[in-house]
């Protein structure tokens, strides 16, 4: 009996000891795992800049990159002949200078000692190949039509390329800023493989692209032409959600957020003044509301359908003006953007060389708006009858954009227009827009650097059709605008172009195919350990090459 009691007692002690041991093990495991996962500890140990972006690049080859993220990352790997400067005029980069022989012939001189990432020299042959390959049907570049105005691109010496255009074309120099140079040796006759095997010419070479974790590792190019050291290593990760991106910065898992930061989120940065810093610069993204000007589908119907009534309304300039006057844009800029956007009077951003200072924005005036609608014959038929007319605003599912579209909807309802929102994911929305399947949509043109964009957006030759692409998605037709746009793109004199663009903007503000809204600031949120970065107006990440990292518990600045 005593033995059995002792055994029971011993067994209880043993159980307690095991339980205690388990607790200690659990505690130690938690401590170790916490230490291992502590982000700051892992970040501070290296000299890598950890960048987060909002989406995965569809391609890093500049001939295939279309999204903003892909284009900006591609710039780091593939250098272009020229880059857009802060004055929005081209500055030399791989090219030393450009010489205009006659209105259609240009000679571009390359810098000496340029190399690709494998050490082979970058020559005029590579430049000529890059531009010619765009037109190659085997390459199937989405930018194939961009350089259609070139007659020929030829290497006339090791460092000189001759561009011959079909006709004088003013935006040519700006277009040279948009295409990074690829290696002819690496890409010739193997366009598809070349798209995936990156051999760049830029300040950074791609050493790893893990598509499972959406992570890119970039190492500084040793044979880069610019003086001064480059930031040695950049790790780029994709974090799709904007709140998570902010969290990553706060937790120290990332140094630099180049993804879209909503102006509302910027107030969070102020809560972490010792850790985070926000830098902004006036952006070039033109936000607008576009209207479908195609008119009624069935003009012979005895009883006009609601859809045709809306389509007829939108062809009337008084209705378009009424819609423009009904939106309190200044209130949106104040409360939604917290001043991080500038009011737009047209497609050309403020401080642009071609911007006219004489244009003034349409001010919020719902009383005049109602009177304009009455004058146009769209009187209020009362609730349930579509009121004045019915309208659908198409927008993307992005929360911030949706919330702004709700403001337009309320403003339009206040005028007596029955309004509803159509939310579609971006690809479906874009498809609808391209096919003219919309009434009003809200999007952003970004970045507006070259004012010749007017030709793509408003010239009648660019109204998209079943077998034809084009940026004139609202089907705006105005012979005066057509003529002015052609004059502006064929003149190489900046002063003459400026006068012409001023006339174009004035005409567009009168006829209102678009309601100009605002230009959103380029916002970059980064850790305070990132020094010497100035955000670019175009959103370019090229400035990262001059960044210095200050790791607080390391041996000093890296």
């Amino acid at each position, binding site marked *: 009996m005593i033995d059995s009691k002792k055994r029971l007692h011993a067994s209880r002690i043993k159980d307690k000891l095991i339980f205690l041991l388990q607790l200690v093990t659990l505690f130690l495991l938690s401590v170790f795992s916490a230490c291992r996962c502590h982000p700051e500890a892992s970040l501070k140990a290296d000299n890598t800049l950890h960048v987060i972006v909002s989406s995965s690049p569809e391609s890093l080859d500049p001939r295939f990159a279309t999204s903003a993220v892909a284009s900006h990352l591609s710039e780091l790997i593939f250098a272009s002949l020229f880059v857009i400067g802060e004055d929005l005029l081209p500055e030399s980069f791989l090219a030393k200078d450009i010489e205009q022989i006659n209105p259609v012939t240009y000679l571009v001189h390359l810098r000496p000692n340029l190399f690709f990432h494998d050490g082979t020299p970058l020559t005029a042959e590579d430049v000529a190949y890059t531009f010619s390959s765009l037109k190659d049907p085997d390459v199937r570049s989405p930018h194939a039509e961009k350089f259609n105005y070139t007659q020929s691109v030829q290497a006339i010496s090791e460092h000189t390329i001759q561009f011959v255009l079909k006709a004088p074309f003013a935006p040519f120099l700006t277009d040279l800023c948009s295409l990074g140079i690829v290696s002819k040796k690496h890409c010739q006759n193997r366009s598809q493989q070349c798209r995936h095997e990156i051999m760049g010419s830029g300040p950074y070479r791609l050493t790893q692209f893990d598509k499972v974790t959406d992570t890119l590792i970039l190492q500084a190019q040793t044979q880069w032409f610019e003086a001064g050291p480059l930031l040695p290593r950049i790790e780029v990760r994709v974090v799709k959600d904007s*709140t998570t991106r902010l969290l990553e910065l706060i937790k120290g898992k990332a140094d630099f957020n180049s993804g879209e930061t909503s102006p509302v989120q910027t107030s969070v940065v102020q809560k972490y003044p010792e850790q985070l810093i926000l830098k902004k610069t006036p952006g070039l993204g033109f936000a607008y509301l576009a209207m479908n000007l195609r008119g009624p589908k069935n003009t012979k119907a005895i009883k006009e359908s609601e859809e045709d009534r809306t389509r007829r309304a939108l062809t009337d300039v008084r209705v378009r003006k009424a819609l423009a006057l009904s939106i309190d844009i200044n209130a949106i800029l104040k409360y*939604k953007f917290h001043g991080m956007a500038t009011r737009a009077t047209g497609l050309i951003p403020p401080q642009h060389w071609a911007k006219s200072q004489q244009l003034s924005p349409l001010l919020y005036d719902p009383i005049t708006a109602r009177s304009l609608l009455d004058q146009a014959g769209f009187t209020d038929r009362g609730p349930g009858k579509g009121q004045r007319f019915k309208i659908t605003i198409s927008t993307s599912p992005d*929360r911030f954009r949706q919330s702004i579209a709700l403001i337009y909807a309320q403003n339009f309802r206040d005028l007596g227009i029955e309004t509803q929102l159509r939310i579609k994911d971006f690809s479906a929305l874009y498809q609808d827009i391209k096919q003219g399947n919309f009434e009003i949509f809200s999007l952003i043109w970004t970045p507006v650097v070259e004012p010749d964009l007017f030709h793509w957006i408003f010239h009648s030759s660019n109204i998209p059709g079943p077998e034809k692409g084009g940026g004139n998605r609202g089907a705006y037709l105005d012979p005066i605008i057509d003529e002015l746009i052609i004059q502006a793109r064929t003149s190489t004199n900046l002063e003459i172009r400026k006068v012409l663009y001023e006339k174009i903007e004035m005409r567009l503000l009168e006829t209102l195919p678009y309601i100009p809204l605002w230009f959103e600031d380029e916002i970059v949120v980064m850790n305070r350990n990132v020094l010497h970065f100035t955000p670019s107006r175009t959103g370019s990440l090229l400035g990262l090459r001059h960044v210095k990292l200050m790791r607080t518990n390391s041996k000093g600045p890296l």
Partner: protein
Amino acid sequence: MEQRTIKRFLKNPSSLAGTIIILCFILIGTFGPWLIGDQGLLIHLDMELKGPSAGRLGFAENGVDVLTSLIYGARISLLIAMTSTVISLSIGIVYGAISGFFGNRIDAIMMRIIDMLLAFPGLLLAIYIAAILSPKTINVVFALCATGWVGYARVVRAQVLSIKNYDYVIAATSLGAKTHRIILIHIIPNILGPIIIQASFGLASLILAEAALNFLGLGVPPGTPSWGALLDQGVSYLFIAPHLAIFPGICIGITVLGFNFLGDGLRDVFDVKSQ
């Protein structure tokens, strides 16, 4: 329902608590909008994301009043959940009764169809359907019903299988009663207990599913007040306006708890073994 059952129901603390909670939300959803008006749903940009200190329960995106949104949201959530339950229940009862009553090959085929539907995770299928359809309240109901009826059909079938061999059913068959009469008059009234329990739990999951769909932006049209949509805003502005996540979260939590309490209570009431 027998008076004895009602007494048991009222004496059961779980069912009583559940009933009170649900009744409160139904009353809020029904009469709240009428009392509070719709001014709070209009945009007041100067109030955007202001916290409860600025008034009532604070303000959401575009300065929409959170309390008004929650009250209107209660109406939407309960309406969607109840409509979906009624539709799912109707389909499930008819389907399960036919399958269970006729048995054999009909049962086998009908059950394989159910197995196929069960192979998809319910919410995932609802998300898929809602993503294809445009954001409309009716489409949310359709998406939730698409898989919602399956659970009821299984319960009904199981009950019918056990009841169809009872003497009173055999007697009705022997007397020449028609099949639909046997099912409607003799079988379904006797299996209502388990179905009601299942429905009360189902309502709770439908409220959660509806919130999830709205949270993913696949639910009601934008601008329509709903708990899930408010919760979605709350996540986006977690750092700046945590009240946007807290209040709809509490509402969803309490309502789901209420339905679960009710379900537990009903199970106790209808469980003969526990008497």
